[in-house]
């Protein structure tokens, strides 16, 4: 098995399993799938699901049937940053359709698609329980509310900024190295058409 959680994550799994009575560790499946998805590239490959099955002593099918039921689990690779736009009634009344259209205009992706550089995925989702702050989306762990075109611009820039920081720390753990360093960084950032960025999480 090539995949495995870090020791910290294994401790976290242990903590979760202990919140149920003895022998009921199957209950830990959904929380552990959340961790697995976060740790292994934002989606659940068969390999990841098999690893979770072994970890919790379940049959692989028990994991597959759960992973396919819940909409937060991605069964295909996704971009580094995912925009999950709510499109249900109350958000629609406040212009969620225009936000989806604007993202298409700006990034060239329709719902379900990922930019060719593997940076952004657009997903439309159903009511996220933030109807009063519409239109809104989920981005990572948090909600972004009262969306406007300008706010989408800011969020996209923020994402690039976050990635820039991650790469900078990976390539230059000791700090920026001047012009050549920035050039290298730019090359990395424009890695197009590879389907997914070869950037470690």
């Amino acid at each position, binding site marked *: 098995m090539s995949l495995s959680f870090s020791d910290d994550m294994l401790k976290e799994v242990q903590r979760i399993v202990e*919140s149920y*009575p003895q022998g*009921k560790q*199957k*209950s*830990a*499946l*959904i*929380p552990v*799938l*959340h961790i697995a998805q976060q740790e292994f590239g934002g989606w659940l490959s068969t390999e990841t699901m098999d690893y979770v099955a072994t970890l919790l002593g379940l049959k692989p099918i*028990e994991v597959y*049937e*759960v992973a396919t*039921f*819940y*909409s*937060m*689990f991605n069964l295909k690779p996704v971009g580094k940053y995912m925009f999950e736009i709510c*499109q*249900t*009634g*109350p958000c*629609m*009344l*406040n212009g969620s359709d225009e936000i989806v259209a604007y993202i298409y205009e700006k990034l060239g992706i329709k719902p379900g698609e990922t930019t060719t550089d593997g940076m952004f995925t657009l997903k439309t*989702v*159903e*009511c*996220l*329980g*933030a*109807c*009063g*702050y*519409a239109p809104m989306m*989920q981005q990572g*762990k*948090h*909600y972004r509310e009262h969306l406007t075109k300008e706010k989408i611009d800011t969020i996209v820039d923020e994402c690039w900024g976050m990635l820039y920081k991650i790469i900078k720390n990976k390539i230059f753990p000791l700090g920026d190295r001047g012009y050549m360093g920035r050039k290298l960084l730019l090359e990395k950032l424009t890695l197009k058409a590879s389907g997914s960025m070869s950037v470690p999480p």
Partner: protein
Amino acid sequence: MEFFGKTGRSARYLVVNADESEPGTFKDRYLMEFIPHLLIEGMITASYALGSKCSYIYIRGEYAWIVDILEQAIAEAKNNGWLGKNILGTGYDLEIYVQRGAGAYICGEETALLESLEGKRGNPRIKPPFPAVRGLWDCPTVVNNVETIAAVVPIINEGGEEYAKIGVGKSTGTKLISACGNIKKPGVYEIDMTISVEEFIYSDEYCGGMANGRKLKACIPGGSSVPILPANLLLKTAKGETRYMNYESLADGGFATGSMMGSGGFIVIDDSQCIVRHTYTLARFYRHESCGQCSPCREGTGWMEKILWNLETGKGKMGDIDLLWDIQRKIEGNTICPLGDAAAWPVAAAIRHFRDEFEWHVTNPDDAQRRNYGIGHYANPIPVPVTA
């Protein structure tokens, strides 16, 4: 509680339903995000009354950051000795855990929630047995909403009688209303159920009136599953009496001319909006969220979505409206859990009250692509169609 399993030896559980996914509803989020200790205190009290030594909060997966807030509140309670072993020296032990879902409206249905908490797909169970007899891991279990459990605190502190003095008739206590849609001040409001709907929408203390100077066209007063009402029937009942924000008054007139308090998700729709499109988004929601166990729900929700999409995009036929009516009637009451009804009611009510807008989409397909129907005559009483 007589209903509760009398097994004596076996464990009992309290599970708080924080799945909150009914479109228009975001009140539990407010409670958990800003006053989590109220929920924890309510849970400790309720768990003690039930004799539960281990209680869970099942929260929708998307509220990831709220999990941290709740866990911190739990840790604080533990540090103060209000939770954990031998609480305040009474010999009573209690642990509270937070469990995250992963995106499924149906897991708000109590038996689907328990399945999900057991690490399975969220397929509702057939009742009976009810959770109070056989629930989590086959043990007696009580499932209650966040707001319900939070209300335990004032009820215990003030006494039931005192608490019941708030409100009117059977609508005692306070209710959280999450208001959204085309209003000036969307948000969560705690009301005492004596105010009128008109006051709630227009007064500055609450929604502050319609946004952008628009007119009120329609409203779904209790979350997406309850019947939509046109402005005229929303503000006054069919008998011409003022409609109030309480259980009885909102339900006055039954489904023909009334609606329901439901989850308190108050969705206000202005005259620039299209009822067909709004109904379509709800139909799509229920198709997406159907667990697929019962054919009427699985197939029916898909059909309703397709037909409404055709109507919305100008490809509908006159017969489609009756077909929609027929499909929703065949779903209602023929399914394992109430999601089927919840999917049928909004479609039924939209046709019942806004049939002319549906027909306009068929007779003026090109117009329907360019503009919306407008307010029509919804401010005046309209006759109930024959099919209703």
